[in-house]
């Protein structure tokens, strides 16, 4: 785990009363890791324009987060932004890229294609429905394409996760992946469950009718009066 850590003296091991020292070192290391996330320029489709290019543009400046150094080689990158649909032919190479990245690496699946296959979910023979079938994803940013501000919200969520979740002694442990843009209550597992249930049992085509039964649909109706038919 890095030259420095291999040779660090034993005080990182659990010594009585050492928790303050450890957490302070943890805090510094996590602070530095979260504030210098160098993205790997890996865009396959239209999300690449919004996620990698437009966020780096003068209007919404990715450099403010210290993340504008887009490294081309996976060795020096530590944040893999999957911007665009993943196809079967590309999945193995994406896994290869993920393996080549140096260890404290994070993955952001941006765009509904990378989360669940997006508009190509049905009738497509070569789409991989969701990048989390290939690489472990930390943060999902929904949208097609998500706005640069949504990407920043995802980035800040990832930074918060890094600051809270990771301890240097057990780098593999991370907070559960959270859906960046959804309210705190909903996590990815509920979505997967709902999606699975919709596919297997309901198997329905009429999207309006299906939407009307969903819980959030009822709440929406109260807030926004249904537009009259002939508007």
């Amino acid at each position, binding site marked *: *785990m890095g030259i*420095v850590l291999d040779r660090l003296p034993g005080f990182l091991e659990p010594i009585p009363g050492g928790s303050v020292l450890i957490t302070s070192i943890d805090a510094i*290391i996590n602070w530095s890791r979260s504030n210098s996330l160098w993205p790997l320029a890996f865009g396959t489709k239209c999300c690449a324009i919004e996620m990698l290019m437009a966020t780096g543009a003068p209007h919404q400046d990715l450099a*403010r987060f210290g993340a504008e150094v887009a490294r081309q080689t996976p*060795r020096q990158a530590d944040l893999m932004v999957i911007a665009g649909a993943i196809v079967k032919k590309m999945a193995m190479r994406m896994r290869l890229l993920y393996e080549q990245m*140096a260890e404290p690496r994070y993955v952001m699946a941006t765009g509904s294609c990378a989360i669940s296959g997006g508009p190509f979910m049905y009738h497509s023979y070569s789409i991989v429905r969701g990048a989390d079938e290939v690489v472990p994803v930390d943060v999902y940013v929904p949208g097609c394409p998500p706005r640069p501000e949504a990407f920043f919200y995802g980035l800040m969520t990832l930074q918060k996760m890094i600051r809270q979740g990771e301890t240097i002694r057990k780098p593999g442990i991370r907070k559960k992946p959270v859906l960046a843009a959804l309210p705190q209550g909903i996590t990815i597992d509920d979505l997967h469950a709902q999606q699975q249930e919709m596919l297997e049992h309901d198997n329905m085509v009429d999207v309006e009718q299906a939407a009307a039964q969903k819980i959030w649909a009822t709440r929406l109706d109260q807030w926004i009066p249904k537009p009259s038919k002939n508007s």
Partner: protein
Amino acid sequence: MTLAWLKIMAVVGQPTWEVVTVADRASASLESRWYVAVAYMIVALVAVAAMVVALGMGLIYGERKIAAHFQCRMGPMRVGYHGILQSVADTIKLLLKEDIVPARADRVLHLLAPFLTLVVTILILGVIPYSPLMQLADVSIGVLYLTALSGLSVLGLLLGGWSSNNKWSLLGGMRAAAQVISYEITATLALLVVTMFSGTLTLSGIVQSQAQGWWVWRAHGVGVLSMALFIVAATAEINRTPFDIPEGESELTGGFHTEYSGLRFAFFFLAEFINMFVVSAITVTLFLGGWMPFRIGDWESFNNLMGLIPPSLWFFGKSAVMVFVMMWFRWTFPRMRVDQLMRLEWKILLPLGFCNLVVAAVVILSKWYFFPV
């Protein structure tokens, strides 16, 4: 040993610059108290190491902010006030990255390459006269020492390129070798012109010789041309745009440091920025009068006023201007192609350098320059 600096301040008017280097003090105190000499050595080493780290972080932060403002954006803002702690965060993160050595890479050379580039840079830092008192060692063959070391830096790139067992980095390494070796000739020619004018090889001697005026305007046309030649050749030697073909991002995905990650990549990254400072320091020492304040002939009051600013401030101010010019190059020029680069060197800069040398010789012999000695 009263500080030479106080003595200088007492004498108003034409201050005589008496250069005392750390090496002189160490050798002076060697016979009587050997431990004071050792202390001087340790102080010198610590000073250079601190300078490398501080300069590296400062330059990286400076480059990112200046590049941002060139491109109508703000650059790092959220890490510390206006992103000041950004380089600190980068460095700590790079320290703790996983250290990957490719499978069939030549392990020894792969691990050696980054250190080689950084060591060469630090060796040059030790010779540069920052101010009459702040100079670590005044090597008698100063300029020859500089050109020899700048030739050595290409080894690091070549080793890095060849040993990481990757076609892209091999191409990057080969390009680096071709480029740095050929551009050294023009750089050496440009330095030769100044040594001819100043008559000495020692760097402090060259700075002293510019007491009446800096070589860039005192040696009128010849001085300006050799400074231009040196800036172009030096930018090529440290692989900065428009000559950054060894690690051209869009062509070779990373050039010679494609396979480096974590701390080793940090060494390459740091060496590139310290090289930028080193080249601007050499330009300032030889062409812009090092720590010599700006003086115009016999304007007493003006010269005294200029004399009030401490010499080290003069030096670092001028090199900051030169560093800004190099950053300016990087964010405006596209990249050259390999053969265009070679053609520029061998067919344009080299003949220009030789003619400049001959003209300089004629100017010196017939004393056609300002305030001939």
